[in-house]
């Protein structure tokens, strides 16, 4: 497919279609309503289903019902809506079904605002809903990466029969950038539907899709099955990018998503001024690429975590580098996006303080 200029939200919708998804259930919320608007036009063209649900509770539980039949399905929302969808995420994880959730984050808490933020990091990575479960969480920094990671999310959801989240901030959803739609990644093997999906029991024993296990030993066993997947993620699904780390940078910045992009601009400008600063950008937020970060942090010796929040990922960064290295933090929140100059200022202040 040729290179196209697309808004992030629309590109995410198209990526789902290119990945083979024909079912989309959603409820409008700023700043990601364009996904629904795009797919309300696009799904009928590919004989797919677009359904505007009565609420995010409804939409996410429609995803649950469709996922149980074994068909690829997804939904998109923004922060307050994701809080409502947390119910279904927990059930989908417990019932071991494939589904993709996209969160285009806006400022919070509460109704918050409608401008970009990263303040749902803890919600996504530490468990939005109740119980012993995790989401596989990807954080794109460009519209192109949002496309690629959305396609990848469908494959990973199928491979692990687990809910996968693509989490961008409002900028990723609203920004227009050139994108290409490469063929989706190879299907790594959906476990045969015969053994788990609820799609008519003719010719085989019935399948029951459930998260209820009243016998504590059986529930614990189900939790261990989930844990085994998460352990695999910590080996096979770690993703990160480093930038300007090859020389001898004086400081390592950690940032994800759009924030990392802004940090790159600040790092480039500092580089022209003769000050070398490296960047570590986690792409998988859960599992968090702790080992790779720790090795880099040990070498560079100074770490500054920059976020569009008052400090959420910084907890994982600190846990990764250990107690001997105090991670510093700079962030703006509530929909305020730090400029490259502000990030530069924060970096220089840190370097001065440590001098």
């Amino acid at each position, binding site marked *: 497919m040729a290179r196209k200029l697309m808004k992030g939200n629309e590109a995410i919708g198209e990526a789902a279609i290119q990945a083979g998804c024909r079912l989309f259930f959603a409820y409008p919320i700023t700043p990601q309503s364009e996904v629904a608007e795009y797919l309300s036009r696009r799904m009928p063209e590919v004989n797919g289903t677009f359904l505007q649900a*009565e609420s995010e509770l*409804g939409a996410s*539980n429609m995803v649950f*019902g469709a996922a*149980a*039949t074994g068909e690829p399905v997804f939904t998109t929302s923004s922060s307050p809506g994701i809080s409502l969808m947390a119910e279904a995420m927990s059930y989908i994880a417990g019932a071991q079904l494939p589904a993709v959730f996209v969160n285009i984050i806006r400022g919070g808490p509460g109704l918050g605002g409608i401008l970009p933020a990263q303040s749902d990091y803890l919600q996504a990575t530490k468990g939005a809903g109740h119980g012993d479960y995790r989401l596989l969480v990807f954080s794109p920094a460009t519209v192109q990466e949002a496309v690629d990671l959305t396609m990848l999310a469908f494959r990973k959801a199928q491979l692990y029969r687990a809910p996968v989240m693509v989490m961008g901030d409002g900028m990723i959803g609203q920004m227009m950038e050139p994108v290409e739609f490469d063929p989706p990644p190879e299907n790594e093997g959906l476990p045969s539907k015969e053994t788990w999906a*609820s799609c*008519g*029991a003719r010719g085989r024993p019935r399948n029951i*899709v459930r998260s209820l296990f009243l016998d504590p030993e059986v529930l614990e066993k189900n939790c261990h099955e989930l844990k085994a997947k998460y352990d695999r993620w910590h080996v096979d699904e770690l993703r990160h990018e480093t930038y300007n780390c090859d020389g001898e940078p004086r400081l390592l910045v950690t940032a994800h998503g759009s924030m990392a992009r802004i940090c790159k601009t600040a790092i480039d400008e500092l580089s022209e001024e003769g000050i070398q600063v490296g960047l570590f950008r986690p792409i998988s937020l859960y599992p968090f690429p702790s080992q790779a970060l720790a090795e880099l942090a040990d070498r560079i010796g100074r770490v500054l975590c920059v976020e569009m929040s008052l400090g959420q990922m910084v907890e994982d960064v600190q846990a990764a580098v250990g107690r001997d290295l105090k991670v510093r933090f700079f962030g703006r929140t509530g929909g305020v996006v730090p400029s490259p100059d502000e990030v530069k200022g924060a970096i220089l202040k840190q370097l001065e303080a440590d001098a």
Partner: protein
Amino acid sequence: MSTIFSPPRSMTENITHYCPGCTHGVIHRMVGETLDELGIAGRSIGIAPVGCSVLIYNYFNVDFQEAPHGRAPALATGAKRARPDLIVFTYQGDGDLASIGTNEIVHAANRGEKFTTVFVNNAIYGMTGGQMAPTTMPGQVTTTSPAGRDPALAGYPMRMCELLSTLRTPGYVVRTAVHTPQLMVQTKRAIRRAFELQMAMRCYTFVEVLSTCPTNWGMSPVKALEWLQENMMPYYPVGVFKDPDLPETQKGLVPTPLDHQVGQPE
């Protein structure tokens, strides 16, 4: 010797967990018989609620999904839209459907989703131990209305057939009961009609069945049947509120008598 009566093939031989005198077992059996008679068990999906019948999947040789509290209509919507070739039914109680899941049921019905809802109304929360439901009768004592439901504080019981019948879309809305043999026969007929309408992809189908809960009502099974007749029947009239093959009467607010329902022998 020939077999003249046996359990439905679409049901398992598991012993149900229901209390003595509970009518869930009878209603389960009617669903099972219907799946057998229509030959659809192998291409059906049941959606279980949260409540006493959460374990309904233990009793059917049918693929099942277990929904969060109140969300069965949303799961059924997702499943039916994903696989329109399958038969999808939900089985919900009154706390599940008329309280926490009111939004989901109203909108699924209003979209005209092509699945079947079996709604069992026993005017109380059973599994959690007899709390007041939206369907609890005025004056009825429950563990959260120890002095009896006070309509001044809790409002009057919600009548779901009447509520859904004010919507234009839903095609088949019927209320029945199972406390007499005649009503059981009519309930079975209504459930079968609902599945037939779904098989023809004609409309959303909703069958409410008035039911007893001797345990949480605090009375014997026989007394519970009498209580249902005396207290619930006047407030919750049985009948066909909507049927695509019957002329609509007063926007569905006045039901057609059950003995005029489609499929009734002449």
